[in-house]
């Protein structure tokens, strides 16, 4: 690792954060879609979905938070793609900088942008009646899970950012990620799903992450479920980081 890694990453992070503040629409559009889903499901479909004694907005919020992250990371792929296409990526790579700083700056920018979007979505949920008796440790645990999830998905987004041929291609990979929560316990209890779908839904990462966040919000004992969720997040992060760095090395060598 170059001695300038942290300094260079900070300089480049400053650059991408400036991009975000000058195109605040990227944060707004990231938050708008999950908020629209929140409104649609709570006020239109929610009444017909049986979640027992839990108010539907409380039931739904964890899944909506994951959808927020999944749609937010598309901008990482987009911004990285724009850097590749404009030639500024090559300029940075031909300079005496720590080379991987360029990627880390985009990843950290994604964490900042997604955190803002997540706060906006939670505030809207509070306005819609979301309530949680969770204390500070539980909220911090939720933030930690979401941070890991954001990092994992962002490193995944780095790959299309590096290899895409068009801006649309760079962002399109996030569509299946946005869809994945529908096939989980995010919107409806999995018990109502038919056999094979139910097996898939109960064993895919979104369900365990959603359940862990839901338990933390409702002050249920989290137990082994939390560790499954963390293992999914950490595993995804390691795999995504490895694939992204591998793609990056093939690109710059």
């Amino acid at each position, binding site marked *: 690792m170059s001695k300038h890694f942290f300094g260079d990453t900070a*300089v480049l992070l400053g650059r991408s954060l400036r991009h975000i503040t000058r195109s605040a629409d990227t944060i707004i559009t990231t938050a708008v879609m999950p908020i629209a889903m929140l409104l649609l499901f709570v006020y239109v479909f929610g009444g017909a979905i049986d979640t027992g004694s839990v108010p539907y907005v409380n039931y739904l919020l964890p899944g909506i938070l994951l959808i927020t992250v999944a749609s937010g990371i598309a901008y990482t792929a987009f911004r990285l793609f724009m850097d590749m296409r404009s030639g*500024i990526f090559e300029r940075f790579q031909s300079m*005496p900088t720590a080379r991987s700083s360029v990627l880390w700056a985009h990843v950290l920018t994604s964490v900042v942008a997604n955190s803002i979007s997540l706060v906006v979505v939670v505030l809207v949920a509070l306005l819609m009646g979301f309530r949680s008796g969770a204390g500070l440790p539980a909220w911090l645990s939720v933030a930690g899970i979401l941070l890991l999830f954001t990092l994992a998905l962002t490193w995944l987004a780095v790959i299309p950012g590096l290899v895409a041929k068009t801006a649309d291609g760079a962002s399109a990979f996030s569509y299946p990620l946005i869809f994945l929560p529908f096939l989980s316990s995010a919107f409806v209890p999995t018990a109502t799903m038919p056999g094979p779908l139910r097996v898939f839904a109960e064993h895919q990462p979104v369900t365990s992450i959603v359940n862990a966040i839901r338990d933390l919000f409702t002050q249920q004992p989290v137990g082994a479920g939390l560790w499954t969720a963390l293992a999914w997040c950490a595993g995804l992060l390691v795999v995504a980081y490895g694939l992204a760095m591998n793609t990056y090395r093939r690109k710059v*060598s």
Partner: protein
Amino acid sequence: MTTRQAQAIQVHGLEKSYGGLRVLRGVDFTVARGGIFALLGSNGAGKTTVVKILSTLLKPDAGTARVNGFDVAAQAADVRESISLTGQFAAVDEILSGRENLVLVARLRHLGNPGEVADDLLERFSLTDAAARRVSTYSGGMRRRLDIAMSLIGDPPVIFLDEPTTGLDPQARIEVWQVVKELAAQGTTVLLTTQYLDEAEQLADRIAILHEGRIIVNGTLSELKRLLPPAEIEYVEKQPTLEDVFLALVGADGKDRNAGTNA
């Protein structure tokens, strides 16, 4: 004085293929310190590939290249300390202002006084009035000037200019030529690629022609001219070219262009 110090760039037997396409088939040349070396070739001749290998963005399949005495494969970090790359398309950040672009590069080159460096370059490249504007509002010529200004930060001894005037209008082209001449006058080594014969003729002290993956000739302009039979003397009425007319009408000095935008 060793050859290592006398030669800024040494390239031997460089080969590179993309899939089955052999782009470089054994390229050899050297560039003396402080010289302007033009690599001339048609589109697809492999000029950009040579520049990318020399600026450590691509690894050659075979052959060696040394820049400022450092091997591009084994001492890539030292090479990157010694060079600046100005690619085929102005590599500037459109969302930042001109000044922010310069400060960004100065910080990444770890200079102690990035603001001062930026202001000096803005002045030198007649961009002071546009300094605070977003680069997306700049004209093509201003963008290229900013791009080259970014490449000068940190005074690297070797500068690569990959088709620096492609897509520029005649005035902007003359401005770029002026900058390149000033650089060489200060002792910077310049390797430029171009597909314009007059550009090589105007700027370079040595010209190499890259054709089908090899350097087919390499010499000074007069050496290259001697390769052909002696010129016959003919009477020709010297008509002004359209470029002469254009420049005479709009003013060729290239000043007062800061207000120019694409808009």
